[in-house]
């Protein structure tokens, strides 16, 4: 019994041991699998995982370069960079999101639009623990409130950034342009490396044209980050190279004067330095606050800006296209001289209207009256300029072949961009027979030439083109392209074609001087009797202390039917004529050339000329005074 029990036991033990050995074998096999896996991970694939762990840990973060600053010619900062503080939330750390938003709303009064924007951004693909901006541009008070309640707001961070700021707001919105947020379409064109970490780029004006120079070169920092993306250690830095600082020809004081001279009226002023072509002032009114596009603008506000009838975002100086009107007459006169259509001596008789041979239609002078009376009497080119005789220039235009005429006139910059470094400039329109065939599918009629003779018809120019044109006359035929940039802190990134020194061909120096004399008469000839004064004399010529050459112009907006007159006051404001005045001074040695446009302003001499006078006074008088002082000192020391 005991024996059997014992052997039972040993038999049971033996069978048990067998099972243990079996289990042990299975365990060893499975441990073998684990060890093989460790060999695989740690020895065979070590390098791959090593790299992977480094990629986890080390992040190469772009460091956006500081955008180049923009100064005026006297070193006044026109566009700088400002620190801003944005409020961002890390979803993973914030806990219950609706409650967090409610709490933030209590401190900051978030708008509904802001919250829905935030929700949208939150749904976009992002790294875990990436902070999402809910409000940009925190005020100091808001930051203080948030700092006090910091402990109640887990996952809420204040991020600092640097953005463009335009201290002169509306004054320089058009010439400087502005930066705007980089959008999807921009990303397709931009170098993703250079723009890593950059949110804004120049999209208008100088900011756009010199984008490559202003942007600078992106830098990188190699940092060790934790899983939350928080930087624990800086490992290596490749510093960014700040953008190139630009100095413009623009003179802030003159810009202020020009802006004020135009006042609340719609219009544009372009002032050039005749010697360099430098743009001394560029006004387009109304204007807008470019900072709004950086600090954030509501869709409503943006639409209001876009849809406003007075078009504040439209840069009239380079994109406004208007008929040049009588300001074009110098070009017609010069063309007639080169083509031999007339001489300085020839006179014609102006009866107040012009008729093409064999046609009934009459082309009216501005002095035309009912019953075809009026007119300027006997006019030569000089008198035709200072009296602005339409009849004279109708006659001259009808004498010239259109394509030769247009070819000559285009040398002044009509029908093509004239600026060297001005982005998105409109070309205007200089019609000729090819254009008419192509666009209207018609031949060029003599009547088209007649209209072109006084700057009406299809012809369109921008204020910049007109300033450039009068600048050519100021320079006695030498063509100097307008430009914004005066100097830069380093060599530019942009390839700027060096301006060719070109001159208008086919005219003698005497022709230019005589044309300038005629333009001086526009301003200075006065007190000589009925129909003898320059057109601008009554408005600006009576108290002027230097010699100014100018020409007024009035561009029709609506066509006047044959045989009718109209009352300017009855017309809708936006259908009234545009007032032009172009001028340069001093006439002998010009310091400034100006084109003034007052949209729907009425008569050029009465409305636009005083504006031009104010601008030119502000530029010329201090310089004349300084020259006089220098001269008297030189005289004093010489004795």
């Amino acid at each position, binding site marked *: 019994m005991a024996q059997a029990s014992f052997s039972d036991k040993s038999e*049971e033990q033996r069978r048990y041991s067998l099972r243990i050995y079996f289990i042990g074998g299975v365990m060893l096999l499975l441990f073998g699998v*684990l060890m093989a896996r*460790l060999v695989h991970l*740690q020895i065979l694939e*070590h390098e791959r995982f090593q790299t992977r762990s480094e990629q986890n840990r080390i992040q190469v973060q772009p460091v956006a370069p500081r955008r180049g600053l923009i100064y005026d010619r006297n070193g006044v900062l026109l566009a700088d960079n400002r620190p801003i503080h944005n409020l961002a939330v890390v979803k993973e750390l914030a806990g219950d999101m609706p409650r967090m938003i409610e709490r933030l709303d209590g401190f900051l009064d978030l708008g509904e639009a802001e919250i829905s924007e935030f929700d949208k951004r939150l749904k976009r693909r992002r790294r875990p623990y990436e902070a999402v901006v809910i409000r940009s541009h925190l005020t100091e008070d808001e930051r203080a409130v948030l700092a006090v309640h910091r402990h109640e707001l887990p996952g809420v961070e204040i991020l600092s950034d640097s953005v463009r700021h335009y201290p002169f707001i509306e004054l320089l919105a058009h010439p400087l342009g502005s930066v705007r947020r980089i959008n999807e379409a921009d990303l397709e064109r931009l170098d993703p490396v250079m723009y890593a970490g950059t949110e804004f780029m120049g999209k208008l004006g100088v900011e756009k044209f010199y984008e490559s120079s202003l942007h600078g070169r992106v830098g990188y920092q190699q940092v060790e980050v934790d899983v939350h993306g928080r930087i624990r250690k800086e490992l290596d830095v490749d510093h960014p190279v700040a953008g190139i600082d630009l100095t413009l020809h623009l003179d802030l004081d003159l810009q202020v004067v020009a802006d004020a001279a135009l006042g609340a009226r719609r219009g544009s002023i372009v002032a050039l330095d005749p010697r360099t072509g430098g743009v001394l002032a560029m006004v387009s009114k109304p204007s807008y606050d470019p900072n709004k596009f950086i600090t954030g603008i509501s869709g409503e506000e943006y639409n209001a800006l876009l849809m406003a009838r007075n078009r504040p975002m439209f840069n009239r100086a380079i994109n406004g296209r208007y008929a040049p009107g009588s300001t074009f007459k110098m070009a017609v006169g010069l063309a007639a001289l080169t083509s031999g259509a007339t001489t300085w001596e020839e006179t014609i008789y102006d009866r107040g209207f012009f008729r093409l041979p064999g046609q009934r239609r009459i082309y009216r002078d501005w002095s035309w009256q009912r019953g075809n009376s009026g007119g300027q009497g006997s006019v030569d080119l000089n008198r035709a300029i200072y009296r602005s005789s339409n009849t004279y220039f109708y006659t001259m235009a009808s004498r010239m072949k259109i394509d030769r005429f247009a070819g000559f006139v285009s040398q002044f910059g009509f029908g093509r961009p004239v600026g060297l470094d001005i982005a998105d400039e409109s070309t205007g329109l200089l019609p000729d027979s090819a254009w008419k065939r192509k666009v209207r599918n018609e031949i060029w009629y003599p009547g088209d030439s007649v209209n072109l003779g006084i700057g009406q018809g299809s012809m369109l120019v921008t204020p910049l083109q007109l300033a450039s044109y009068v600048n050519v006359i100021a320079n006695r035929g030498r063509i100097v392209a307008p430009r914004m940039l005066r100097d830069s802190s380093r060599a530019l990134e942009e390839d700027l074609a060096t301006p060719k020194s070109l001159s208008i061909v086919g005219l003698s120096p005497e022709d230019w001087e005589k044309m300038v004399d005629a333009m001086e008469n526009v301003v200075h000839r006065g007190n000589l009797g009925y129909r003898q004064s320059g057109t601008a004399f009554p408005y600006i010529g009576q108290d002027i202390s230097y010699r100014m050459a100018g020409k007024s112009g009035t561009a029709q907006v609506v066509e006047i039917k044959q045989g009718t007159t109209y009352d300017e006051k009855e017309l809708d404001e936006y259908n009234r004529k545009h007032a032009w005045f172009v001028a340069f001074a001093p006439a002998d040695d010009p310091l400034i050339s100006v084109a003034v446009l007052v949209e729907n302003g009425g008569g050029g001499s009465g409305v636009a000329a005083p504006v031009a006078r104010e601008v030119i006074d502000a530029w010329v008088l201090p310089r004349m005074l300084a020259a006089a002082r220098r001269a008297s000192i030189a005289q004093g020391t010489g004795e």
Partner: protein
Amino acid sequence: MNIDFVRTLRTGGTAEPPTRVRFEILPEPVLLPLLVILMACGLGVLYSALHGRTEALSAQGIKLAAGFVIMLVVAHVHPREFLRFGPVLWLGGVALLVLVHIFGEVAKGGQRWLEVGPFPRFQPSELLKLAVPLTVAWYLHDRSSPLSLGDICVALAIMGIPAGLIIVQPDLGTGLLVLAAGGSVLFLSGLPWIYPAVAIGGVAAAAPILWSFLREYQQQRILTLFDPESDPLGAGWNIIQSTTAIGSGGLMGKGVLQGTQSGLDFLPEAQTDFILAVIGEEFGFVGAMGFLVLYILIIARCLYVSMIVRRTFDRLVAGSIGITFFVYVFVNVGMVCGLLPVVGVPLPLVSYGGTSALTLLFTFGVLTSIYKHRNN
């Protein structure tokens, strides 16, 4: 034998006179030193995984020390007491599991914790890790071999009821451990070979049906195992980060506190379930192998003890302890290495956390008791 003792301990009135137990500091010469080494090394790794936060580290040290003392105390309880109280423990455990279902507190997406009066939070499922093998062994230790179908069914019920309750909590990891503990007893007690063979075949055949019973997050865990890159920031994150940690450690590791995966928080659950990744990263292949060898030695010792003891109950319990411990290690290491789906099983005696360590040390106390009382 009860003549010359210096210090005696009466074990809670359960021991019958004249049985008096002589208290020994080292009642088992192999297992206990191995456990001490394992826990010491584990604390070292934990120091790193906790980024040198010494308060948490000393709290864990105290828990382990307390567990060790409990183990020594349990070692002096005669195995027959476990035989007697196993079923009681089982009944109580199952009752508590039912209570958890009704009143339990939800933590980390599962209903596992029970708060009772002044006691610290407590998981009844831990109790079953011990109660199930004891009860299965209690039921089977005097059945003659081969086991009848009825006995097998009873044994399956003893482990299946609590395991089912735990799995629906849902806590798949603990449920599997309970099944492993009970199943190992069943296997060791002479289950005919045909049953495990049929069971494995059956599970394989029923896999598609079982699949549909799994919760979505459990299915996701299994799917990401095969292709962690399919969801690198979601379900695949843990596997990718832990294999990266281990792989980047290489042969010798990055050094103590030099692990970037754990130090920079890329590795989730670095102090708890994924601590092996910290070992692999900072101590390399050598360190990870060192831990595996320690585990192998401990398991081998358990199996050896189970072979030298005379009573069937003791044998079954000891063998089951070894096998369950193996399942612990294998599931955890397999999961961290990306070989098995992510189930909540800690690395025994190394992962941060008191409850599982306490249960484990208690079972090692049982094993020590079995060894110590092998001759009486």
